[in-house]
């Protein structure tokens, strides 16, 4: 372990800026690096990501490794893993953190197997063991019904970290750091799984992950039409509509609406769950919500164990009256 030093964050870009999860990881990495008395590195891989290096420094990185190459323009696993592996072998960080995003889920396990190390995915808490200084990696398991803490003596100690689980530092543009360019050295032939097309589904209004108010419907809504009523309330409260898995699986709403373990992780101020039973796999995706309110016809539903306020009854009767009253209150 002694040859390994430093904490490295695998950075991601979103809309020309560092992704929120990357700034969160830098915040967490800064704390861990401080405790270890080591440096914080940020790795940026992409088509032309050099412009993000200063931002990474402003959010806490001491050193930024930049790998830019036309073959890295869009995420492709084979090329990204090679680039990340190259830098990881060169820098030999003690800890390597990746966001639990659609890229991180795909990249981190490959990288861990290639580096011969152990990875813990979807962590919500990271700390150092006071005596061994090993990284304690806490993650929800069994769909959120329990939590497990893992360690590993293999280096780098790797984790993917859930969005919104960590806090970023305040951006400080006066912070100093070093930018190091690394040649990707990629051959087109190294790409065995080739990206043919990327299709982004447009979202209207507030993005679910960013919304302060989320109105979420479950199987109890019964069909696509019901979701119109949820949209109406979300519109009034400038929020977003989400769903548990069944409405997505049934095609009542697009799959991007799914909240939960295998969907979006959200942390709104106000979360209204309608016709949702409150399965652990769903609740783990909104455990960061400040206030959970539930409407369910079953008084025994698990959602009432998680909610602050609840109404027991048929949503078809309750929601229109709730929307009307909220409209009235908002008009005052």
């Amino acid at each position: 372990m002694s040859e390994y030093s430093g904490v490295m964050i695998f950075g991601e870009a979103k809309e020309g800026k560092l992704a929120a999860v990357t700034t969160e990881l830098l915040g967490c990495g800064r704390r861990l690096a401080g405790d270890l008395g080591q440096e914080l590195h940020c790795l940026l891989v992409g088509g032309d990501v050099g412009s993000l290096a200063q931002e990474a420094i402003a959010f806490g990185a001491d050193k930024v490794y930049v790998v830019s190459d036309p073959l890295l323009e869009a995420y492709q696993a084979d090329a990204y893993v090679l680039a990340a592996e190259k830098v990881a072998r060169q820098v030999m960080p003690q800890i390597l953190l990746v966001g639990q995003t659609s890229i991180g889920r795909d990249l981190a396990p490959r990288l861990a197997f290639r580096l011969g190390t152990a990875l813990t995915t979807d962590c919500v808490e990271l700390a150092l063991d006071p005596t061994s200084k090993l990284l304690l990696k806490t993650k929800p398991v069994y769909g959120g019904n329990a939590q497990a803490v893992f360690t590993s003596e293999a280096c780098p100690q790797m984790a993917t970290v859930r969005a919104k689980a960590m806090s970023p530092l305040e951006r400080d543009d006066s912070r100093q750091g070093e930018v190091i360019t690394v040649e990707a050295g990629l051959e087109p032939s190294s790409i065995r799984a080739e990206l043919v097309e990327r299709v982004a589904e447009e979202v209207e209004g507030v993005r679910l992950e960013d919304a302060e108010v989320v109105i979420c419907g479950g199987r109890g809504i019964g069909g696509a039409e019901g979701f119109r009523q949820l949209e109406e309330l979300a519109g009034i409260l400038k929020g977003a509509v989400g769903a548990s898995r069944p409405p997505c699986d049934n095609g009542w709403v697009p799959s991007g609406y799914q909240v939960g373990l295998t969907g979006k992780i959200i942390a709104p101020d106000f979360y209204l769950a309608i016709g949702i039973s409150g399965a652990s796999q769903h609740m783990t995706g909104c455990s960061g919500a400040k206030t959970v309110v539930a409407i369910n016809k079953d008084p025994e539903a698990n959602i009432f164990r998680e909610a602050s306020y609840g109404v027991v009854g048929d949503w078809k009767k309750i929601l229109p009256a709730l929307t009307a009253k909220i409209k009235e209150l908002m008009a005052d």
Partner: protein
Amino acid sequence: MNMVVCCKQVIDPEAPPASFRVDAAKKTVTLPPSISPVIDPYAEYAVEAALRIKDAQGGKITAISLGTGLLPDVVKKPLSMGADELILLEDEAFGTGDSWTTAYALAMAIKRLGDCDLIFCGRQASDWDAGQVGLGIAEILGLPSVTLARKVEVADGKARVERVTDDGYEVISLSLPAVITVSNELGEPRYPTIKGIMAAKKKEPTVWKPADIRVEPAQLGEAGRRAELVKLFQPVREGSCEIVDGETPEEAAASLALKLREAKIL
């Protein structure tokens, strides 16, 4: 087309949350004995993905389950759905591993099978929610791979896969053999037919021990694993829910709105 589907036996993830218990000393999660284990739900989607290819162009599907205490009624589900063969890697030595030891043993079993075009796994097993074994198999066997598939088609020696992303999907083309991990966006796995269940009852699984797949003891269990589980616990829920009542549902709704206003949530 020879296909392998890796299917793990897990405790039922959809059992009521209140029925999950943690044995902190043994670091295991248990359910009441009345709730039977199941095949990991995402592995069922993986079986479905393989079956759709078999429906379209024929082929053979081999299911592999690794573990201890495997129940015939559970691990035979892929057979009853339409898979052709079942291999069980069942041995105490497979019991205390991690993603590494599991991926390694499965990879070695696939190697022993030989001549395999497509390997399907679930996106993540519903016990540890790791999402690593499929990619581990690919890395160990040196194969290309795609995660989070919602659609898989095969033509001209290549697979065309639609992969779910945070805001949509991407289309990926890869050469075979390859590993593909499957997500629920694929669409509901089929129910076993009566005929399928009867056929599965009659079929004897092949059981392989570590020596059968040339896996050394050093690559198994405690000796082989690289991750250490140091603690397992259930987070405490504060949970006190105020149930808002009313003479009619409409009244209850109105008083909920007022309460939320008072509490400055609205």
